[in-house]
């Protein structure tokens, strides 16, 4: 790393429309063979910085400062120079592989067209080159795949194809902007492994932009933490995680749910990240900072940036006190113990949901997708059951079938002892007061034309109980309950941030005083610091109101923090259901083991020490599940019997848990 840096950024400053100050004086260097992780929440300026590096910002952006890449000054180069630089000196990997590829063009053509545009590849050789590149990123049957279209690729394969595309021209710098955020955790492990191997083979420098501190801890050499358009701290990855010098970094690490940590409540960072259009005076972090909130210096003077070229440093007036931010700012409240003797509130037995596949001239049913294939669950009052699994495993369908939003094809759902399968619509509506659903996306699940107050009051009006429940005063009480100011009652959803919108969704769900909440990925769309706030709110509500939660999520760390018990789903079935502590301590099913092993842990010291299991292949198509145990084609421990018969979910000796794997039981 003594050579000149591959890219050198000095005093980069980016303003949109003259007033939105997105990036404010950013300096960093990246050297060959190195991975720089840029970490930050939404609005921190990290993605804008990435686009500026390759000259891809829209013309309305005003860029000052310097970006030197491959001998080119990017901020002042003309369009043709920048075009030639892109693909040749810098390759980009973006977040969502479902939208980064053009749906109408074959994947092979999209991989090689950059090289053809640069004149480094003849059109006649393009297909052979695409096949070679696909093979390098572990796409099976590259000859057959090269002419296929993106929709014929799975998510993980698409992202590997994007990696192949970004690396086709052998650029010296790869910028990966949230490359695995849209992927399942086992697929994320595959994609990160491919990215790391290709980086080693080509010697490229990588800028990895992410909000996921676990991914950074496992892949980056150096880290730059961005907040409010600045780099507030930079340093080697071990330093950042072991001894953060900026209170924001320290608080961020502390607010992170972990699969390996203690059971303490998450320490939340108060407030919202600043929006680039309305930055606070002084240090941008001071309104949320436990160290500087009360100090005049922090309120009035912005700390000097980390000196350009410095390898370690923080933009903080009191870097030695950052550790104080690690101290809990709120006393941990003990959760009410779950009355295990209480009769179950929800009992799901042998639930099946099948969707027909139609085809042919008369649209006859030619197949069935068994989205849920025999699920059993029980949930007691005041208890949280985490339902985890990768996309397509049937966890959301299970939740919707319990709510009666999807008709089950077989099985029974009993709520408070009453079978809901045979209920007439009117009875079902009455019952639904007691079970409410919270959606993942706080942006699309609120009607943009209604005020927040109307949204929260709507279930009350639907059930005709608005006045009897206490009218406007009751709604204001709900706002207070979820931590929203009653002064915002007349605003529409667009005035709220993502976390605040999710609070509106929670208030709406609470309005009818339900006993069961089905939470479908309630924090997946939120920033890390906001996730902690919502998880803590849900914990408080459960303790105060005795709610039962069915918490559906793919994030094993969040599930660990909120759940009492956890059920792991794979392809429509529950493969393991255990008490939380037992499951995370010693997972029994091979799928659970690989799932937990694939979660990146935000601790660089643990890197490589955990013996990661990287699952081969993709989750199978639920329309054509493998014979026997659905997991056997990807299972390391599979024996001949596994493909013959589907194992039953059996009790584990000496423990209130079940696992659907005879091998696992033998080993327990």
């Amino acid at each position, binding site marked *: 790393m003594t050579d000149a840096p591959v890219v050198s950024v000095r005093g980069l400053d980016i303003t949109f429309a003259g007033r939105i100050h997105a990036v404010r004086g950013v300096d960093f260097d990246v050297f060959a063979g190195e991975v720089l992780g840029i970490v930050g929440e939404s609005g921190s300026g990290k993605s804008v910085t990435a686009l500026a590096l390759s000259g*891809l910002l829209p013309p309305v952006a005003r860029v000052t400062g310097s970006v030197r890449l491959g001998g080119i000054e990017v901020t002042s180069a003309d*369009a043709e120079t920048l*075009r030639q630089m892109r*693909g040749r000196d810098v*390759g980009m990997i973006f977040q969502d592989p479902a*939208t*980064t590829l053009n749906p109408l063009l074959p994947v092979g053509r999209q991989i090689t*067209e950059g090289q053809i545009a640069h004149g480094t590849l003849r059109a006649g050789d393009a297909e052979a080159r695409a096949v070679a590149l696909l093979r390098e990123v572990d796409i099976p049957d590259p000859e057959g795949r090269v002419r296929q*279209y993106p929709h014929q690729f799975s998510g993980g394969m698409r992202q590997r194809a994007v990696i192949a595309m970004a690396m086709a021209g052998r650029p010296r710098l790869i910028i990966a902007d949230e490359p695995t955020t849209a992927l399942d955790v086992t697929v994320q492990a595959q994609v990160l492994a491919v990215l790391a191997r290709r980086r080693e083979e080509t010697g490229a420098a990588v800028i990895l932009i992410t909000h996921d501190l676990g991914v950074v801890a496992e892949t980056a050499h150096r880290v730059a933490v961005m907040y409010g358009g600045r780099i507030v701290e930079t340093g080697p990855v071990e330093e950042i995680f072991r001894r953060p010098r900026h209170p924001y970094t320290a608080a961020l690490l502390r607010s992170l749910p972990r699969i390996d940590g203690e059971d303490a409540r998450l320490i939340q960072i108060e407030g919202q990240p600043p929006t680039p259009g309305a930055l606070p005076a002084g240090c941008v972090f001071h309104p949320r900072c436990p160290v500087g909130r009360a100090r005049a210096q922090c309120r009035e003077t912005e700390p000097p940036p980390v000196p350009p070229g410095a390898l370690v440093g923080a933009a903080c007036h009191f870097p030695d006190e950052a550790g104080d931010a690690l101290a809990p700012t709120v006393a941990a409240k003990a959760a009410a113990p779950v009355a295990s003797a209480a009769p179950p509130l929800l009992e799901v037995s042998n639930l099946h949901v099948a969707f027909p596949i139609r085809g042919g*001239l008369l649209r006859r049913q030619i197949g069935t997708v068994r989205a849920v294939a025999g699920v059993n669950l029980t949930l007691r009052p005041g208890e949280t059951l985490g339902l985890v699994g990768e996309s397509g495993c049937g966890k959301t369908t299970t939740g919707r079938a319990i709510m009666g939003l999807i008709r089950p094809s077989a099985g029974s759902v009993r709520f408070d002892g009453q079978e809901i399968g045979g209920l007439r619509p009117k009875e079902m509506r009455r019952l639904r007061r007691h079970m409410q659903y919270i959606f993942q996306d706080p942006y699309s699940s609120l009607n943009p034309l209604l005020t927040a107050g109307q949204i929260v009051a709507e279930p009350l009006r639907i059930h005709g109980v608005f006045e009897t429940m206490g009218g406007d005063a009751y709604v204001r009480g709900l706002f207070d309950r979820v931590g929203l100011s009653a002064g915002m009652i007349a605003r529409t959803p667009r005035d709220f941030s993502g976390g605040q919108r999710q609070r509106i969704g929670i208030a709406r769900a609470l309005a009818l005083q339900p006993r069961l909440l089905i939470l479908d990925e309630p924090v997946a769309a939120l920033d890390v610091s906001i996730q902690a706030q919502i998880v803590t709110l849900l914990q408080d509500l459960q303790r105060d109101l005795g709610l039962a939660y069915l918490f559906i999520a793919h994030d094993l760390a969040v599930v660990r923090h909120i759940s009492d018990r956890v059920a792991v789903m794979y392809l429509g079935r529950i493969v393991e259901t255990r008490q939380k502590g037992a499951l995370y301590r010693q997972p029994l099913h091979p799928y659970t083991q690989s799932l937990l092993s694939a979660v990146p842990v935000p601790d660089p010291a643990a890197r490589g020490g955990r013996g990661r299991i990287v699952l081969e292949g993709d989750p199978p198509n639920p329309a054509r599940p493998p014979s026997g145990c659905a997991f056997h084609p990807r299972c390391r421990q599979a024996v001949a019997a596994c493909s013959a018969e589907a194992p039953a979910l059996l009790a584990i000796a000496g423990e209130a848990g079940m696992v659907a794997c005879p091998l696992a039981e033998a080993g327990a």
Partner: protein
Amino acid sequence: MTGFILRRLAQLLPVLLIASLGIWAMIYAVPGSPVAVIVGENATPEQIREVTVRLGLDRPLIVQYGAWLWAALHGDLGLSIQSREPVLALILGRLPPTLQLGLAAILVGLVVGIPVALASALRPGSWLDRVLSGWSALALGVPTFWLGILLILLFAVELHWLPSASSYVPFTEAPLAALRNIALPAVTLGLYVSGIFARFLRAALIGELRADYVRTARSKGLRERDVVGGHVMRNAMLPFVTIVGLMLASFVGGTVVTEAVFTYPGLGRLLIQAIGTRDYPLIQGCILLVLLLYMGVNLMVDVLYAYIDPRIDFG
């Protein structure tokens, strides 16, 4: 592919059946019975009875419908009351001129509309975009009869370059004469649809230019013309072919006003004449044929869609 088309055709059958019932029943729904039209106002009750029996109007309704449908399926749509000629022959005679004008107008619309849309969409909000958007609004807002008359005054009356009345000359037989005759009505209609095309395509292009795959294409170092031509255009075409198909479908049903201005022998004028003279068999035949053409164009759009978009499965 063949299966896809067959399935689409099969789906059209019930629609056609219901539509045919409506078309047949039209005779009874419209004031003034066909018998009264044929026998005139001063007919005796015997004459009325005789015509009623001759036309089979004394039979049960279901039998009448069955007979009508059976004949229609064999290409027998009856005789025109006015001219005593077979309805089918009358309509088929008007079909080639109508198609020729419709296709020519769509062509003019595309040749004008696509470049306008591209120039606007590549720099939205620029002075060029504003000028072109204003132009599109003008093309949409000017009534076709007025534009047609203006064009006749300029190119026929003043300059004597083109005929003022357009007769039908098959393009395949005498291309030059065909072009001379069709130029003014095709431009009249074409300018109108170019406004529609430009608006739709501009919106589609602007939407696609914001898509993630465009950023990806640029990040590979593609030239802007390849980004637009190779990536954006194809995606923007998807919504666009629907609009082009709809406009073509509306033109094959005849363009009443334009045909009238240029005294062009299209389906639109035939239908207007038939309505004016209460020539029921001819009205029925025209509507049935327009319906068939409409369905045919829609099927073409579906096939084109599936051809452009690999995500649509022919199976």
